[in-house]
C-alpha cells in the first residue's frame, strides 16, 4: 500500500526537479565560488540566481538581503545573538511562549549565562498572542522581539507585520521565525517593518541543512560563524553550493505552487478535519481555525495518548506527528498546547496532520477510513473513557 505522508511540517520530500537542479553542482560545477577561475565563476552565478529565487519568494527588495545559512536554527540563533551585540544598552528579548526550541532554548541559555531578561508573551486558548502583554513587555531595554510567523504545531498565524511595527516603536529590532510560513502563505517582506526573517529549505521541498536569514538592508549583523568573507562576511564558510542551488529551485517552485497551497492543499486539510470531527466524538481542533496555515490541522482526541495513535497509524502506513510527552521523551506534553491551556485530557492525544502539494484525496480517504477505528480501539483500553466502567469520575488514581 502506498504510504501516506502527512508530516510535512516536520520535513518534506525533496522535489525531483530540485534534485535535478542540484546534481551538476556535485560533479561538474564543483568549483569554489571564491576561486579566480572558470570553475568558480559559474558557481558564483548559480549562487546569485538562487539568492534571487529566494528573494522573489519572500518579496525582499534586494537579493543581498538574503544570507544563506545551514537552516532555520542557525538563522534564529544568528538573528537573536546579533541583535544583542548590535543594540547597545539593550539586553532584553521579547518572544512568545510558543516559539520553536531554536528560539526558546537559546533564550533560556542567554537568561542563565548572560543575565539577559526574556519576556515570554502568553497566548490564549486558540494560540493567539496577547498583544497587550507584548506591547507592555517592549521598552527601552528591548534589543529584539522575536515572534514566529506561524506555529509549527497548530499552524496558528501571528500578526507579525503589526508586531514588527510595535517593536520599532520602542526602538527594538524585529525577527520572525518564518520556517513554517515560507512557501505556504504569501509573504512580501519589503512592505513590512520586519528586520530579520528565518527560513528553512527542508520545509519547502529543498534538502535538509540549508536555510536563509533575511537581513533588511541597513540592519547591522554580527556573524555567528566567523572565518572567510563568504555571504558578504555575514556567514563564513565555503558555500554549500548544491544545497543553495536546491533551495533556490525549491523557492521558485514554491512560489509557482503558492495558489495551489492555498487552494487544493487547504481543501484537503479541511476535508480531513471535517471528516474526522464528524466521525470521532470528544475531539477538538487546537489553534486558531480562522487564522491558520492552509496545510496544518492539529486535532486532540480526548482520553487517549498521541504516541499510541501514531504507532497504530504507522502500522497502516500513515505518517503524522504528535505533541504528546511520550514521543519526545520528556514528561510534559507540548509546550505549545500547555501554553494554550489545552486540558491534559486532550493535550496528550493531540495529533498533527500537515499536508503538502504531494498529498492527494486518497490520502485523506485513507486516514478517514482507519483513524476512527484506531481511536475507538485505544479508548476501549483507556480507564478514563466513559463507558469503560471507569470514566473520568470513576477513575481516581493514587497520585493524580
Amino acid at each position, binding site marked *: 500500500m502506498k504510504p501516506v505522508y502527512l508530516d510535512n511540517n516536520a520535513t518534506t520530500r525533496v522535489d525531483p526537479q530540485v534534485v535535478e537542479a542540484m546534481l551538476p553542482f556535485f560533479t561538474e560545477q564543483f568549483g569554489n565560488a571564491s576561486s579566480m577561475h572558470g570553475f568558480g565563476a559559474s558557481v558564483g552565478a548559480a549562487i546569485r540566481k538562487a539568492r534571487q529565487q529566494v528573494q522573489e519568494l519572500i518579496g525582499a527588495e534586494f537579493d543581498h538581503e538574503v544570507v544563506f545559512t545551514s537552516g532555520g536554527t542557525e538563522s534564529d540563533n544568528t538573528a537573536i545573538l546579533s541583535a544583542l551585540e548590535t543594540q547597545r544598552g539593550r539586553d532584553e528579548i521579547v518572544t512568545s511562549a510558543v516559539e520553536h526550541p531554536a528560539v526558546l532554548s537559546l533564550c533560556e541559555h542567554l537568561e542563565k549565562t548572560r543575565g539577559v531578561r526574556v519576556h515570554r508573551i502568553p497566548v490564549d486558548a486558540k494560540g493567539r498572542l496577547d498583544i497587550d502583554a507584548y506591547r507592555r513587555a517592549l521598552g527601552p531595554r528591548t534589543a529584539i522581539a522575536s515572534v514566529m510567523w506561524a506555529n509549527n504545531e497548530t499552524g496558528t498565524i501571528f500578526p507579525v507585520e503589526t508586531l514588527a511595527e510595535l517593536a520599532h516603536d520602542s526602538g527594538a529590532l524585529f525577527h520572525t521565525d518564518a520556517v513554517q510560513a515560507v512557501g505556504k502563505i504569501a509573504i512580501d517582506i519589503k512592505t513590512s517593518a520586519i528586520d530579520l526573517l528565518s527560513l528553512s529549505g527542508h520545509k519547502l521541498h529543498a534538502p535538509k541543512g540549508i536555510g536563509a536569514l533575511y537581513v533588511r538592508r541597513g540592519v547591522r549583523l554580527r556573524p555567528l560563524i566567523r572565518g572567510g568573507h563568504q555571504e558578504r562576511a555575514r556567514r563564513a564558510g565555503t558555500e554549500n553550493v548544491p544545497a543553495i542551488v536546491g533551495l533556490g529551485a525549491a523557492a521558485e517552485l514554491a512560489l509557482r505552487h503558492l495558489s495551489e497551497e492555498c487552494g487544493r492543499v487547504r481543501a484537503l486539510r479541511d476535508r480531513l478535519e471535517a471528516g474526522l470531527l464528524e466521525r470521532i466524538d470528544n475531539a477538538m481542533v487546537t489553534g486558531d481555525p480562522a487564522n491558520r496555515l492552509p496545510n496544518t490541522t492539529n486535532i486532540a482526541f480526548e482520553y487517549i495518548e498521541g504516541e*499510541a495513535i501514531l504507532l497504530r497509524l504507522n502500522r497502516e502506513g500513515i505518517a503524522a506527528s504528535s505533541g*504528546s510527552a*511520550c514521543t519526545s521523551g*520528556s514528561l510534559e*506534553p507540548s509546550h505549545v498546547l500547555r501554553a494554550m491551556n489545552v486540558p491534559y485530557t486532550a493535550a496528550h492525544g493531540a495529533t498533527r496532520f500537515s499536508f503538502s502539494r504531494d498529498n492527494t484525496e486518497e490520502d485523506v480517504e485513507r486516514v478517514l477510513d482507519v483513524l476512527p477505528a484506531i481511536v475507538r480501539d485505544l479508548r476501549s*483500553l483507556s*480507564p478514563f473513557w466513559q463507558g*469503560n466502567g471507569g470514566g473520568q469520575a470513576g477513575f481516581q488514581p493514587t497520585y493524580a
Partner: protein
Amino acid sequence: MWEYSEKVKEYFFNPKNSGLLESADGVGDVGAIACGDALRLMIKVDPATETITDARFQTFGCGSAIASSSALTEMIIGRTIEEAMGISNQDIADFLGGLPPEKMHCSVMGYEALRAAVANYRGETWIDDHEEGALVCKCFGIDEGMIERAVRMNGLTTLEQVTHYTKAMGSCGTCGEKVEEVLARVHREMVAEGTLDAAEAFDPAAARLPALRPKVAVSPLAPAASPAAKPALTSLQKIRLIEQAVEELRPYLQQDGGDCELVDVDGDAVMVKLSGACVGCQMASVTIRGVQERLIEKVGQPLRVIPVKAGH
C-alpha cells in the same frame, strides 16, 4: 521513533487481558492523565491459595505503557500474590525484550499498580513513594531521582563516584554537565540541611569531567609503560588486585541482573565471563570498557579485558 522490541509491538498491537474485570477482588489505580500515563489493574484472587486467577487492565498511555500493562497481566495470572510481588519492573521490561531507557517508567507503573491492587485486595491503603525525575543519562536510563538517592545514601562527593555508583555518564559522557548540575544541587541542599560539610560540597567550577579514557599509559594497545609512582607488582599481587576489583564491580552489574566472573589472567590480558543480563546486552561492550577502566585504575597498569564465552 522509538526502537521497540517485537514483543513490545506485539503486546501493543494485540494487547492481552485488556478491559474491565467484573467483580474484581482488588483494583489498583496508578498514574495520572496529566503525566500522560495511567493504569488500572484489576485482579481476581482465590482466597484459599492467594493465587491470582485472573487479571485485566485498562491503560491510558503510549505504546510501551499499554504493552507493559498487558505483559504484567500475563506474568501474574496463575501466580500467588507472594510470587507476583517478587516481579520487579526490570522483569516486566525483560519479559518484553527490553524497553528504551526513557520508557522504563512504563514498567515501573505496572510494578506499582500490582502493589496498589494487592493493597486494595487486602483492604489496605497503598501509599505511593513514586518519584520521577528527568532522565539524565540516556545510555543507562538514570534519572535525577536515582542520582540524588545514590548521592544522599552514600555521601558521594565526586562525579567519578556518581558514575561508579549509578553508571550515569559511564558511556558517551555527554550528560556530564547535567550530572554536575544535579550533584551541585543535591550538595547545596545537603549543606543547608547540615548533612554535608560545605568544604566537601561539589564545586562545578573546580571540577573537571573525569576522562573516560585516562591519559596515562592505559590504552590497551599502548606498550607496557612503567607505571609512574607505583612500585612494580608481582604477578600474584597483580592477580589479587584484579580479583579484588572484579569482586567490587559485581554488585553493580548484579543490580542490573548481570554478573561478571574472573576466568584467567595472562600477562596484560584479563579474561572475564559476563553472564545474566549482560549476555547479549547492547551495552556489553561498554560494560567491558568500564570493567577495564576500573581494573586499570586499581592495578595501575595497562590491562586488556577480554570477554570469554561461557564454558571457555
